Protein backbone atom coordinates (compact mmCIF):
# COMPACT_ATOMS: atom_id res chain seq x y z
CA UNK A 1 0.00 0.00 0.00
CA UNK A 2 1.70 3.20 -1.10
CA UNK A 3 2.48 5.45 1.77
CA UNK A 4 0.24 3.80 4.28
CA UNK A 5 2.71 2.41 6.84
CA UNK A 6 4.36 5.73 7.56
CA UNK A 7 1.23 7.82 8.07
CA UNK A 8 -0.30 7.91 11.52
CA UNK A 9 -2.94 10.30 10.18
CA UNK A 10 -6.62 10.67 11.00
CA UNK A 11 -6.99 11.15 14.75
CA UNK A 12 -4.35 13.79 15.35
CA UNK A 13 -4.58 15.89 12.20
CA UNK A 14 -8.05 15.65 10.90
CA UNK A 15 -9.81 18.95 10.74
CA UNK A 16 -10.45 21.60 8.18
CA UNK A 17 -10.62 24.63 10.46
CA UNK A 18 -13.27 27.32 10.58
CA UNK A 19 -11.92 30.54 9.12
CA UNK A 20 -12.01 33.91 10.84
CA UNK A 21 -11.93 36.68 8.27
CA UNK A 22 -11.13 40.26 9.19
CA UNK A 23 -12.80 42.85 6.98
CA UNK A 24 -11.47 46.35 6.40
CA UNK A 25 -14.02 48.84 5.11
CA UNK A 26 -12.09 51.37 3.09
CA UNK A 27 -13.23 54.77 1.85
CA UNK A 28 -10.89 56.88 -0.27
CA UNK A 29 -7.96 54.69 0.74
CA UNK A 30 -8.60 54.83 4.50
CA UNK A 31 -10.12 52.24 6.85
CA UNK A 32 -13.28 53.86 8.12
CA UNK A 33 -14.30 51.50 10.89
CA UNK A 34 -11.45 51.75 13.32
CA UNK A 35 -9.87 48.74 14.90
CA UNK A 36 -8.55 48.75 18.43
CA UNK A 37 -4.95 47.82 17.93
CA UNK A 38 -2.08 48.98 19.99
CA UNK A 39 1.23 50.08 18.58
CA UNK A 40 -0.08 51.22 15.25
CA UNK A 41 1.31 54.38 13.83
CA UNK A 42 -1.82 54.97 11.82
CA UNK A 43 -5.06 53.20 12.69
CA UNK A 44 -6.65 54.10 9.39
CA UNK A 45 -4.06 52.67 7.03
CA UNK A 46 -5.30 49.53 5.24
CA UNK A 47 -1.82 48.05 4.80
CA UNK A 48 -0.93 48.40 8.47
CA UNK A 49 -4.28 47.07 9.63
CA UNK A 50 -4.16 44.12 7.25
CA UNK A 51 -0.71 43.19 8.56
CA UNK A 52 -1.81 43.64 12.18
CA UNK A 53 -4.87 41.40 11.70
CA UNK A 54 -2.72 38.79 9.99
CA UNK A 55 -0.20 38.82 12.85
CA UNK A 56 -3.05 38.49 15.34
CA UNK A 57 -4.29 35.33 13.65
CA UNK A 58 -6.81 36.34 11.00
CA UNK A 59 -7.07 33.49 8.50
CA UNK A 60 -7.92 35.85 5.66
CA UNK A 61 -8.21 39.54 5.04
CA UNK A 62 -10.99 41.21 3.06
CA UNK A 63 -10.64 44.78 1.89
CA UNK A 64 -13.95 46.28 0.90
CA UNK A 65 -13.96 49.56 -1.01
CA UNK A 66 -17.17 51.15 0.23
CA UNK A 67 -16.88 54.28 -1.84
CA UNK A 68 -15.81 52.63 -5.07
CA UNK A 69 -16.22 55.75 -7.12
CA UNK A 70 -14.26 56.20 -10.28
CA UNK A 71 -11.87 58.74 -8.73
CA UNK A 72 -11.08 56.41 -5.87
CA UNK A 73 -10.05 53.43 -8.01
CA UNK A 74 -6.42 54.50 -8.29
CA UNK A 75 -6.28 55.15 -4.55
CA UNK A 76 -7.82 51.74 -3.89
CA UNK A 77 -5.34 49.93 -6.15
CA UNK A 78 -2.49 51.63 -4.36
CA UNK A 79 -3.93 50.50 -0.99
CA UNK A 80 -4.33 46.94 -2.31
CA UNK A 81 -0.76 46.94 -3.59
CA UNK A 82 0.64 48.16 -0.29
CA UNK A 83 -1.50 45.78 1.78
CA UNK A 84 -0.64 42.79 -0.42
CA UNK A 85 3.11 43.35 -0.32
CA UNK A 86 3.65 41.86 3.12
CA UNK A 87 0.51 39.73 3.44
CA UNK A 88 0.97 35.97 3.19
CA UNK A 89 -2.56 34.83 3.94
CA UNK A 90 -5.44 34.91 1.43
CA UNK A 91 -6.44 38.44 0.51
CA UNK A 92 -9.79 39.38 -1.01
CA UNK A 93 -10.79 42.72 -2.49
CA UNK A 94 -14.34 43.81 -3.20
CA UNK A 95 -16.32 46.91 -4.03
CA UNK A 96 -16.92 48.44 -7.42
CA UNK A 97 -15.63 45.54 -9.53
CA UNK A 98 -17.86 45.61 -12.61
CA UNK A 99 -15.85 43.93 -15.33
CA UNK A 100 -13.09 41.43 -16.05
CA UNK A 101 -10.78 44.42 -16.52
CA UNK A 102 -11.63 45.80 -13.07
CA UNK A 103 -10.95 42.36 -11.60
CA UNK A 104 -7.66 42.04 -13.51
CA UNK A 105 -6.43 45.36 -12.11
CA UNK A 106 -7.18 44.19 -8.57
CA UNK A 107 -5.49 40.80 -9.12
CA UNK A 108 -2.46 42.53 -10.64
CA UNK A 109 -2.27 44.71 -7.52
CA UNK A 110 -1.93 41.55 -5.41
CA UNK A 111 -5.42 40.30 -4.49
CA UNK A 112 -5.94 36.52 -4.39
CA UNK A 113 -9.72 36.67 -4.69
CA UNK A 114 -12.25 39.27 -5.70
CA UNK A 115 -15.73 39.74 -4.33
CA UNK A 116 -18.54 40.84 -6.63
CA UNK A 117 -22.09 41.70 -5.69
CA UNK A 118 -24.25 44.14 -7.68
CA UNK A 119 -22.26 43.58 -10.88
CA UNK A 120 -22.89 39.83 -10.67
CA UNK A 121 -26.62 40.43 -10.23
CA UNK A 122 -26.67 42.74 -13.26
CA UNK A 123 -24.52 40.42 -15.37
CA UNK A 124 -24.28 36.89 -13.92
CA UNK A 125 -21.96 35.82 -16.78
CA UNK A 126 -19.30 38.03 -15.17
CA UNK A 127 -18.85 35.29 -12.54
CA UNK A 128 -17.96 32.83 -15.29
CA UNK A 129 -15.69 35.23 -17.17
CA UNK A 130 -13.57 36.00 -14.11
CA UNK A 131 -13.60 32.34 -13.03
CA UNK A 132 -12.38 31.14 -16.41
CA UNK A 133 -9.41 33.47 -16.32
CA UNK A 134 -8.47 33.33 -12.63
CA UNK A 135 -10.10 30.12 -11.40
CA UNK A 136 -13.33 29.66 -9.47
CA UNK A 137 -11.47 29.79 -6.17
CA UNK A 138 -10.72 33.46 -6.89
CA UNK A 139 -14.35 34.51 -7.31
CA UNK A 140 -16.47 35.24 -4.25
CA UNK A 141 -20.07 36.23 -4.87
CA UNK A 142 -21.31 38.50 -2.09
CA UNK A 143 -25.00 38.18 -1.35
CA UNK A 144 -26.85 40.72 0.80
CA UNK A 145 -30.04 39.06 2.01
CA UNK A 146 -33.06 40.61 3.69
CA UNK A 147 -35.74 38.58 5.44
CA UNK A 148 -39.22 38.98 3.94
CA UNK A 149 -42.30 37.86 5.80
CA UNK A 150 -45.30 36.82 3.77
CA UNK A 151 -48.36 34.60 4.07
CA UNK A 152 -46.24 31.66 2.92
CA UNK A 153 -43.72 32.19 5.72
CA UNK A 154 -40.29 33.76 5.63
CA UNK A 155 -37.80 33.89 2.80
CA UNK A 156 -34.81 36.06 1.98
CA UNK A 157 -34.62 38.57 -0.80
CA UNK A 158 -31.37 39.66 -2.41
CA UNK A 159 -30.51 43.35 -2.14
CA UNK A 160 -28.09 45.14 -4.43
CA UNK A 161 -26.24 48.48 -4.29
CA UNK A 162 -24.89 47.93 -0.79
CA UNK A 163 -28.19 46.60 0.51
CA UNK A 164 -30.23 49.59 -0.59
CA UNK A 165 -31.98 48.22 -3.65
CA UNK A 166 -34.50 45.34 -3.53
CA UNK A 167 -34.06 42.97 -6.48
CA UNK A 168 -37.05 40.69 -6.05
CA UNK A 169 -34.72 37.71 -6.31
CA UNK A 170 -34.80 34.89 -3.80
CA UNK A 171 -31.44 34.61 -2.03
CA UNK A 172 -31.34 30.81 -2.04
CA UNK A 173 -32.14 30.64 -5.74
CA UNK A 174 -29.47 33.29 -6.51
CA UNK A 175 -26.83 31.41 -4.50
CA UNK A 176 -27.58 28.27 -6.54
CA UNK A 177 -27.22 30.21 -9.78
CA UNK A 178 -23.97 31.84 -8.61
CA UNK A 179 -22.53 28.40 -7.84
CA UNK A 180 -23.62 27.01 -11.20
CA UNK A 181 -21.92 29.96 -12.94
CA UNK A 182 -18.66 29.23 -11.21
CA UNK A 183 -18.56 31.12 -7.91
CA UNK A 184 -15.93 29.69 -5.58
CA UNK A 185 -17.42 30.94 -2.32
CA UNK A 186 -20.45 32.84 -1.06
CA UNK A 187 -20.07 35.84 1.24
CA UNK A 188 -23.48 36.01 2.87
CA UNK A 189 -24.51 39.14 4.73
CA UNK A 190 -27.73 39.40 6.69
CA UNK A 191 -29.11 42.89 6.10
CA UNK A 192 -31.32 42.39 9.15
CA UNK A 193 -28.38 41.75 11.45
CA UNK A 194 -25.67 43.88 9.87
CA UNK A 195 -24.50 46.48 12.38
CA UNK A 196 -26.81 45.26 15.17
CA UNK A 197 -24.27 43.21 17.17
CA UNK A 198 -27.17 40.81 17.90
CA UNK A 199 -25.43 37.83 16.33
CA UNK A 200 -25.30 36.25 12.89
CA UNK A 201 -28.51 35.07 11.22
CA UNK A 202 -27.98 31.32 11.72
CA UNK A 203 -31.24 30.35 10.05
CA UNK A 204 -30.28 32.20 6.86
CA UNK A 205 -26.74 30.84 7.01
CA UNK A 206 -27.89 27.23 7.43
CA UNK A 207 -30.41 27.62 4.60
CA UNK A 208 -27.67 28.83 2.24
CA UNK A 209 -25.19 26.17 3.41
CA UNK A 210 -27.81 23.52 2.63
CA UNK A 211 -28.44 24.99 -0.83
CA UNK A 212 -24.84 24.95 -2.05
CA UNK A 213 -21.70 22.83 -1.90
CA UNK A 214 -19.26 25.76 -2.03
CA UNK A 215 -18.00 27.41 1.18
CA UNK A 216 -20.26 29.96 2.84
CA UNK A 217 -18.82 32.92 4.75
CA UNK A 218 -21.31 34.32 7.27
CA UNK A 219 -21.37 38.06 7.84
CA UNK A 220 -23.47 40.62 9.65
CA UNK A 221 -24.28 40.92 13.33
CA UNK A 222 -21.14 39.74 15.13
CA UNK A 223 -21.17 41.19 18.62
CA UNK A 224 -19.17 38.72 20.68
CA UNK A 225 -17.33 35.40 20.61
CA UNK A 226 -20.47 33.39 21.38
CA UNK A 227 -22.00 34.62 18.12
CA UNK A 228 -19.15 32.99 16.19
CA UNK A 229 -19.56 29.73 18.12
CA UNK A 230 -23.26 29.74 17.24
CA UNK A 231 -22.85 30.53 13.55
CA UNK A 232 -20.33 27.68 13.18
CA UNK A 233 -22.43 25.19 15.18
CA UNK A 234 -26.00 26.07 14.21
CA UNK A 235 -25.43 28.00 10.99
CA UNK A 236 -22.76 25.47 9.89
CA UNK A 237 -20.83 28.31 8.26
CA UNK A 238 -17.39 27.51 6.81
CA UNK A 239 -16.06 30.92 7.75
CA UNK A 240 -17.21 34.05 9.52
CA UNK A 241 -16.36 37.63 8.71
CA UNK A 242 -16.42 40.64 10.95
CA UNK A 243 -15.19 44.19 10.83
CA UNK A 244 -16.12 46.34 13.76
CA UNK A 245 -16.24 43.62 16.44
CA UNK A 246 -12.51 43.98 16.86
CA UNK A 247 -13.13 47.61 17.66
CA UNK A 248 -15.51 47.45 20.58
CA UNK A 249 -15.60 44.04 22.20
CA UNK A 250 -12.45 42.11 21.35
CA UNK A 251 -8.87 43.15 21.22
CA UNK A 252 -7.87 40.88 18.39
CA UNK A 253 -8.59 37.83 16.28
CA UNK A 254 -6.34 35.88 18.65
CA UNK A 255 -8.67 36.57 21.55
CA UNK A 256 -11.64 35.38 19.49
CA UNK A 257 -9.81 32.22 18.45
CA UNK A 258 -8.99 31.39 22.05
CA UNK A 259 -12.69 31.58 22.86
CA UNK A 260 -13.56 29.39 19.89
CA UNK A 261 -10.96 26.81 20.90
CA UNK A 262 -12.37 26.72 24.43
CA UNK A 263 -15.80 26.05 22.90
CA UNK A 264 -14.45 23.18 20.81
CA UNK A 265 -14.62 24.91 17.42
CA UNK A 266 -11.62 23.91 15.26
CA UNK A 267 -9.48 26.92 14.41
CA UNK A 268 -5.96 27.47 13.12
CA UNK A 269 -3.89 27.72 16.29
CA UNK A 270 -1.22 28.80 16.99
CA UNK A 271 -1.30 31.14 14.06
Amino acid at each position, binding site marked *: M*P*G*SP*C*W*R*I*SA*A*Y*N*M*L*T*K*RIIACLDVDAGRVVKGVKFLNLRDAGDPAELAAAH*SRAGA*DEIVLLDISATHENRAILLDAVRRA*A*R*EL*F*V*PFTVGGGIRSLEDAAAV*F*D*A*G*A*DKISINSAALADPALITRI*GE*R*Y*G*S*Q*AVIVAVDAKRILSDNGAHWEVRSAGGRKPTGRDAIEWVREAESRGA*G*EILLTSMDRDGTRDGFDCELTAAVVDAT*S*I*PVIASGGAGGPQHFVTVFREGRA*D*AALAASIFHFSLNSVAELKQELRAAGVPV*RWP*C
Partner: protein
Amino acid sequence: MIAIVDYRAGNLVSVKKAVDHLGFACAITSDPMVVERAEKIIVPGVGHFAATSALDSSGLRSAITGAIDRQIPFFGICVGMQWMFAASEEAPGVSGLGVFPGECAHFPQEVKAPHVGWNQLEVKDGSRLLRGVPSGAFVYFTHSYRAPLVAETVACCNYGGAFSAAVEREHLFGAQFHPEKSGDAGLTMLENFCRL
Protein backbone atom coordinates in the same frame (compact mmCIF):
# COMPACT_ATOMS: atom_id res chain seq x y z
CA MET B 1 17.02 33.45 -11.52
CA ILE B 2 13.85 31.58 -10.61
CA ALA B 3 11.32 31.30 -13.44
CA ILE B 4 7.67 31.43 -12.38
CA VAL B 5 5.91 29.89 -15.36
CA ASP B 6 2.86 31.76 -16.64
CA TYR B 7 0.50 29.66 -18.74
CA ARG B 8 -2.51 31.97 -18.30
CA ALA B 9 -3.98 29.90 -15.48
CA GLY B 10 -4.61 32.20 -12.60
CA ASN B 11 -2.77 34.86 -10.78
CA LEU B 12 0.96 34.55 -10.20
CA VAL B 13 1.50 37.84 -8.41
CA SER B 14 1.25 36.23 -4.95
CA VAL B 15 3.95 33.66 -5.71
CA LYS B 16 6.29 36.32 -7.07
CA LYS B 17 5.59 38.57 -4.11
CA ALA B 18 6.53 35.81 -1.67
CA VAL B 19 9.77 34.98 -3.52
CA ASP B 20 10.61 38.70 -3.71
CA HIS B 21 9.96 39.00 0.03
CA LEU B 22 12.43 36.15 0.66
CA GLY B 23 15.03 38.06 -1.31
CA PHE B 24 15.48 35.78 -4.34
CA ALA B 25 15.54 36.98 -7.94
CA CYS B 26 12.56 35.73 -9.91
CA ALA B 27 10.52 36.57 -12.97
CA ILE B 28 7.09 35.64 -14.25
CA THR B 29 7.54 34.32 -17.76
CA SER B 30 5.79 32.45 -20.54
CA ASP B 31 8.91 32.33 -22.70
CA PRO B 32 10.38 28.81 -23.11
CA MET B 33 13.84 30.33 -23.66
CA VAL B 34 13.71 32.03 -20.26
CA VAL B 35 12.54 28.78 -18.64
CA GLU B 36 15.43 26.89 -20.27
CA ARG B 37 17.97 29.27 -18.76
CA ALA B 38 16.38 29.43 -15.27
CA GLU B 39 18.23 28.16 -12.21
CA LYS B 40 14.96 27.00 -10.68
CA ILE B 41 11.42 26.63 -11.98
CA ILE B 42 8.11 27.16 -10.21
CA VAL B 43 4.87 26.14 -11.92
CA PRO B 44 1.94 27.56 -9.95
CA GLY B 45 -1.57 27.06 -11.11
CA VAL B 46 -5.14 27.31 -10.06
CA GLY B 47 -8.35 26.31 -11.69
CA HIS B 48 -8.76 23.45 -14.12
CA PHE B 49 -6.28 20.67 -14.91
CA ALA B 50 -7.10 21.22 -18.60
CA ALA B 51 -5.35 24.62 -18.41
CA THR B 52 -2.04 22.74 -18.24
CA SER B 53 -2.50 21.78 -21.88
CA ALA B 54 -1.40 25.37 -22.65
CA LEU B 55 2.04 24.25 -21.49
CA ASP B 56 2.14 21.70 -24.32
CA SER B 57 1.20 24.03 -27.16
CA SER B 58 3.45 26.90 -26.06
CA GLY B 59 6.70 24.93 -25.97
CA LEU B 60 6.90 25.36 -22.22
CA ARG B 61 6.47 21.65 -21.56
CA SER B 62 9.56 20.67 -23.49
CA ALA B 63 11.53 23.52 -21.90
CA ILE B 64 10.47 22.21 -18.48
CA THR B 65 11.19 18.53 -19.20
CA GLY B 66 14.59 19.52 -20.61
CA ALA B 67 15.36 21.48 -17.43
CA ILE B 68 14.22 18.60 -15.24
CA ASP B 69 16.56 16.26 -17.15
CA ARG B 70 19.39 18.67 -16.36
CA GLN B 71 18.53 18.41 -12.60
CA ILE B 72 17.13 21.95 -12.38
CA PRO B 73 15.03 22.20 -9.18
CA PHE B 74 11.32 22.23 -9.99
CA PHE B 75 8.39 23.15 -7.74
CA GLY B 76 4.77 22.59 -8.76
CA ILE B 77 2.08 24.32 -6.70
CA CYS B 78 -1.62 23.32 -6.58
CA VAL B 79 -2.59 22.35 -10.14
CA GLY B 80 1.15 22.67 -10.86
CA MET B 81 1.72 19.76 -8.45
CA GLN B 82 -1.18 17.76 -9.90
CA TRP B 83 0.42 18.23 -13.32
CA MET B 84 3.51 16.37 -12.02
CA PHE B 85 1.33 13.23 -11.77
CA ALA B 86 0.36 11.19 -14.80
CA ALA B 87 -3.17 12.51 -15.20
CA SER B 88 -6.28 13.86 -13.50
CA GLU B 89 -9.86 12.70 -13.81
CA GLU B 90 -10.71 16.41 -14.08
CA ALA B 91 -9.42 16.39 -17.67
CA PRO B 92 -9.05 12.78 -18.86
CA GLY B 93 -7.49 13.65 -22.22
CA VAL B 94 -4.72 15.81 -20.80
CA SER B 95 -1.49 14.13 -19.79
CA GLY B 96 0.57 15.41 -16.90
CA LEU B 97 4.35 15.31 -16.64
CA GLY B 98 4.15 11.89 -15.05
CA VAL B 99 7.20 12.33 -12.81
CA PHE B 100 5.05 10.92 -9.99
CA PRO B 101 2.83 7.89 -10.58
CA GLY B 102 -0.93 7.87 -10.36
CA GLU B 103 -3.92 9.97 -11.19
CA CYS B 104 -5.55 12.88 -9.35
CA ALA B 105 -9.16 12.27 -8.38
CA HIS B 106 -12.12 14.26 -7.08
CA PHE B 107 -12.85 14.30 -3.36
CA PRO B 108 -15.36 11.64 -2.32
CA GLN B 109 -19.03 12.63 -2.10
CA GLU B 110 -19.15 12.52 1.69
CA VAL B 111 -17.07 15.67 2.08
CA LYS B 112 -17.79 19.15 0.83
CA ALA B 113 -15.77 20.14 -2.26
CA PRO B 114 -13.86 22.31 -2.90
CA HIS B 115 -11.63 21.81 0.12
CA VAL B 116 -11.05 25.45 1.04
CA GLY B 117 -9.22 26.73 4.08
CA TRP B 118 -6.50 25.96 6.59
CA ASN B 119 -5.81 22.30 7.29
CA GLN B 120 -2.97 20.46 8.97
CA LEU B 121 -0.03 18.58 7.54
CA GLU B 122 1.48 15.36 8.74
CA VAL B 123 5.11 15.66 7.72
CA LYS B 124 7.55 12.85 6.93
CA ASP B 125 11.00 13.26 8.45
CA GLY B 126 13.86 14.13 6.13
CA SER B 127 11.99 16.22 3.57
CA ARG B 128 14.13 19.03 2.20
CA LEU B 129 11.11 21.08 1.19
CA LEU B 130 9.54 20.85 4.64
CA ARG B 131 12.65 21.33 6.75
CA GLY B 132 11.60 23.40 9.77
CA VAL B 133 7.88 22.70 9.24
CA PRO B 134 6.54 20.37 11.95
CA SER B 135 3.64 17.95 11.74
CA GLY B 136 0.50 19.77 12.73
CA ALA B 137 1.44 22.93 10.83
CA PHE B 138 -1.50 24.65 9.15
CA VAL B 139 -1.44 25.53 5.46
CA TYR B 140 -4.02 27.01 3.08
CA PHE B 141 -5.72 24.73 0.56
CA THR B 142 -8.20 25.42 -2.21
CA HIS B 143 -8.90 22.50 -4.56
CA SER B 144 -11.49 19.93 -5.62
CA TYR B 145 -9.12 17.25 -6.94
CA ARG B 146 -6.32 15.59 -5.03
CA ALA B 147 -3.28 13.48 -5.64
CA PRO B 148 -2.95 9.95 -4.20
CA LEU B 149 -0.45 8.95 -1.53
CA VAL B 150 2.70 7.72 -3.26
CA ALA B 151 6.16 6.65 -2.15
CA GLU B 152 7.30 10.27 -2.77
CA THR B 153 4.65 11.78 -0.48
CA VAL B 154 6.41 13.89 2.17
CA ALA B 155 3.33 15.48 3.73
CA CYS B 156 -0.20 14.27 3.81
CA CYS B 157 -3.46 15.91 4.75
CA ASN B 158 -6.67 14.25 5.76
CA TYR B 159 -9.93 15.41 4.23
CA GLY B 160 -12.25 12.67 3.11
CA GLY B 161 -9.24 10.36 3.55
CA ALA B 162 -5.51 10.98 3.32
CA PHE B 163 -4.03 12.57 0.19
CA SER B 164 -0.65 13.94 -0.89
CA ALA B 165 -0.22 17.49 0.38
CA ALA B 166 3.45 17.59 -0.65
CA VAL B 167 5.64 15.33 -2.78
CA GLU B 168 9.39 15.27 -3.24
CA ARG B 169 12.00 13.26 -5.10
CA GLU B 170 15.53 14.52 -5.62
CA HIS B 171 15.12 17.93 -7.29
CA LEU B 172 11.37 17.60 -7.88
CA PHE B 173 8.91 19.12 -5.41
CA GLY B 174 5.19 19.66 -5.30
CA ALA B 175 2.66 21.21 -2.91
CA GLN B 176 -1.10 20.91 -3.19
CA PHE B 177 -1.61 23.85 -0.84
CA HIS B 178 -0.48 27.42 -1.45
CA PRO B 179 2.82 28.07 0.36
CA GLU B 180 2.63 31.72 -0.72
CA LYS B 181 -0.63 32.04 1.24
CA SER B 182 0.22 29.84 4.21
CA GLY B 183 1.85 32.30 6.57
CA ASP B 184 5.24 31.53 8.08
CA ALA B 185 5.04 27.77 7.42
CA GLY B 186 4.56 28.43 3.71
CA LEU B 187 7.35 30.98 3.53
CA THR B 188 9.70 28.48 5.21
CA MET B 189 9.00 25.95 2.45
CA LEU B 190 9.45 28.48 -0.32
CA GLU B 191 12.72 29.57 1.23
CA ASN B 192 13.87 25.93 1.50
CA PHE B 193 13.22 25.56 -2.24
CA CYS B 194 14.79 28.88 -3.22
CA ARG B 195 17.95 28.03 -1.23
CA LEU B 196 18.56 24.66 -2.92
